[in-house]
C-alpha cells in the first residue's frame, strides 16, 4: 500500500464527510465527524455585512465598466502580449535576414539570379586601397584610369615610378544559358546587341543551329563597370544554367612593372647625359648601344603596363548557350492552369522556406521564454508554499 492510499474505512469516512458537507444524512458512526465539521464551520470567520456590501459594490463596478473590463478580459495578459511581441520582432528579424541573404532564391531549384549576386562583387575594376593617406575614391580611381591614355604612362615623367594607390582587378566570368532550339538564333543576336549597347565587343563567337543540338558560344569584352549590367541583361534572355565569376587582383604586377619602368627611364636619362659628355666616338657608340637596349626594354614594359591596365579596365565574359527547355519556354508552352499551378507551388516553396527559417529563429526564443516563465512560476509557487509553512 502506498503512502497515499487509504483503507476502506478511511475512504468511507471521507465519503461520509462529503455527505455531511452536502447536508445529506449519515450513519450514527459519523455523527462525531459531523459535529467536528459543524464546530469548524461555526468557528470560521464570517464576513462583515459592511464588507459584503463593499465587495458587492466593487464587483458591480467592475461589471459596469463592461466594455473596458471585457476588453481587459479578452485582451491577452501582459505575459502573452510580451511573448507575442517578441515573437513578432523575431519574425520580422528573421524575415529581413531571409530577404537579405537571398534565401528566397536559394531555397528553390532555380539557379542563382545574377542580378542578385552581381552587386556583391565590386563593380569597379580599380578599388581604393586602405593605405594611410590614400584619398582616392572608387569613382575617382576609375575615372583616373579610364580617362588616362595607356601610352601616356611611361612617357610622362610624373607618372613614371608612381605605384597605384588603388587596386587593379581583372574580372572574368562565364555564363551558361539554356533556350529552345527555335530561339537560339534570336538569343544569339540579342547577346551581341546587349554587349554592344554597353560598349563591349564580341571577341569571338560561334553559333550552330542544329535542332536539338544547337549551341552558341561567345567571348565578350566589356568595360568592367558594366559587367554586372551585361550579365543581368543576358540572364533575362534565357534560363540561367550556371554563372561563374572570378576576380584577380593584378595591382602588385602592375606596380612591379611600373617600378621597373621608372628605373629604366632614370637609367636612360643618365645615359643621355653621359652621351652628351662623351669624349670619344667609341664611348658614344657604347652608350648609344646601351640606350638602344634600354629603349627596347622600356617599350616592352610600356606594352606590359598597357596590357595590365587593359585587363583591369576590361572584363571578359564567356557566354555559352545550350539548347534545352528553358523555364520561359516551358512556361510559354504550358497552359495557364499549369503555369498558375507552378507559380503557386513556387510561392508555397518560398513560404515554407521562410516559415522554416522563422521557426528556427523563433523557436529558441519561445522555448527560452517558456522556460523562464515556467521557472519563475515554480519559484513563486515554492515561495508561496514556504509562506504557508510559516503561516
Amino acid at each position, binding site marked *: 500500500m502506498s503512502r497515499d492510499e487509504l483503507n476502506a474505512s478511511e475512504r468511507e469516512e471521507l465519503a461520509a464527510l462529503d455527505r455531511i458537507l452536502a447536508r445529506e444524512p449519515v450513519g450514527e458512526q459519523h455523527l462525531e465527524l459531523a459535529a467536528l465539521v459543524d464546530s469548524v464551520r461555526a468557528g470560521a470567520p464570517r464576513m462583515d455585512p459592511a464588507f459584503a456590501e463593499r465587495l458587492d459594490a466593487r464587483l458591480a463596478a467592475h461589471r459596469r465598466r463592461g466594455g473596458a473590463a471585457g476588453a481587459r478580459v479578452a485582451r491577452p495578459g501582459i505575459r502573452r502580449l510580451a511573448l507575442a511581441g517578441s515573437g513578432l520582432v523575431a519574425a520580422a528579424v528573421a524575415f529581413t535576414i531571409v530577404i537579405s541573404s537571398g534565401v528566397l532564391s536559394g531555397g528553390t531549384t532555380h539557379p542563382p539570379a545574377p542580378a542578385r549576386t552581381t552587386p556583391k562583387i565590386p563593380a569597379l575594376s580599380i578599388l581604393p586601397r586602405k593605405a594611410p593617406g590614400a584619398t582616392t575614391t572608387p569613382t575617382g580611381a576609375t575615372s583616373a584610369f579610364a580617362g588616362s591614355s595607356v601610352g601616356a604612362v611611361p612617357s610622362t615623367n610624373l607618372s613614371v615610378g608612381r605605384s597605384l594607390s588603388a587596386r587593379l582587378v581583372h574580372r572574368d566570368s562565364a555564363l551558361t544559358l539554356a533556350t529552345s532550339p527555335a530561339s537560339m538564333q534570336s538569343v544569339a543576336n540579342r547577346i551581341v546587341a546587349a554587349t554592344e549597347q554597353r560598349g563591349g565587343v564580341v571577341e569571338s563567337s560561334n553559333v550552330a543551329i542544329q535542332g536539338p543540338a544547337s549551341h552558341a558560344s561567345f567571348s565578350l569584352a566589356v568595360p568592367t563597370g558594366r559587367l554586372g549590367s551585361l550579365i543581368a541583361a543576358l540572364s533575362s534572355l534565357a534560363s540561367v544554367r550556371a554563372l561563374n565569376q572570378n576576380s584577380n587582383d593584378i595591382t602588385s604586377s602592375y606596380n612591379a612593372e611600373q617600378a621597373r619602368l621608372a628605373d629604366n627611364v632614370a637609367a636612360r636619362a643618365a645615359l643621355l647625359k653621359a652621351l652628351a659628355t662623351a669624349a670619344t666616338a667609341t664611348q658614344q657608340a657604347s652608350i648609344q648601344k646601351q640606350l638602344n637596349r634600354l629603349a627596347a626594354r622600356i617599350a616592352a614594359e610600356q606594352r606590359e603596363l598597357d596590357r595590365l591596365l587593359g585587363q583591369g579596365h576590361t572584363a571578359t565574359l564567356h557566354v555559352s548557350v545550350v539548347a534545352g527547355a528553358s523555364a520561359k519556354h516551358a512556361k510559354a508552352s504550358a497552359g495557364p492552369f499549369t503555369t498558375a499551378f507552378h507559380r503557386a507551388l513556387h510561392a508555397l516553396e518560398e513560404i515554407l522556406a521562410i516559415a522554416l527559417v522563422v521557426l528556427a529563429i523563433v523557436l529558441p526564443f519561445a522555448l527560452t521564454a517558456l522556460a523562464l516563465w515556467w521557472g519563475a512560476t515554480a519559484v513563486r509557487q515554492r515561495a508561496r508554499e514556504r509562506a504557508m509553512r*510559516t503561516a
Partner: protein
Amino acid sequence: MTVIAALPTSGPGAGEQFEQLYRSSAADVYAYVASLLRDRTAAEDVTALAFERAFRRRALFDVRRGTPRSWLFAIARNAALDELRKRRRTGALLHEIADPSTELEDLDSELAERRLLVREGLASLEPRDREVILLKFVGRLSNAELARVLRCSESNAGTRLHRAIERLREVCGVTR
C-alpha cells in the same frame, strides 16, 4: 456543492454565471482567507482582490483543469500566500479575528466548550493541516477540487485530508 461548468466571458449568461459563483463562494472564500491570514482587514483586501482577479481572468478559466470553485479557491490561496509572503507575519492566533457573531456566550455550555476546543485545536495544527481542513470544511471542496487547489493528486489530497482530520481529533481529544 455549486457546479458551474464554465465561465463564458461573453454572450447571454456570462455575467450571471460569475455572479452565481460569487454568491455561492464569497463567504467561504472569505472564511478560508481570513483563517489563513488571521487578519480581518487583510482578509477583506485579499478576498476582494481574489474576486477581481477571477473576474479579470475568467477568460483563462479552463473547465478541463477543474471546477470554477477550485479555480477560485486557487486564486484566493495564491493571493493569500502572496500576502503572507509580503507580511512575513506568523504566529497570530485564530481568535484574534473572532467574529462577534461567533461568540459562544449564547450557546449551551457543552456546545460552546466543544467549539472553543475545536477552534483552539485547529489553531494549533500545522499550517498545511489547517489549510486542508479549512478548504474541505469551510470551502466545501470535493477531493478532486482540493487536489487542484493544493496541486497534488486526488489520492494524495484525500490522504492529507484524512491525516489532518485525525490530527485535529487528536489535539481536540475527540474519540470516535
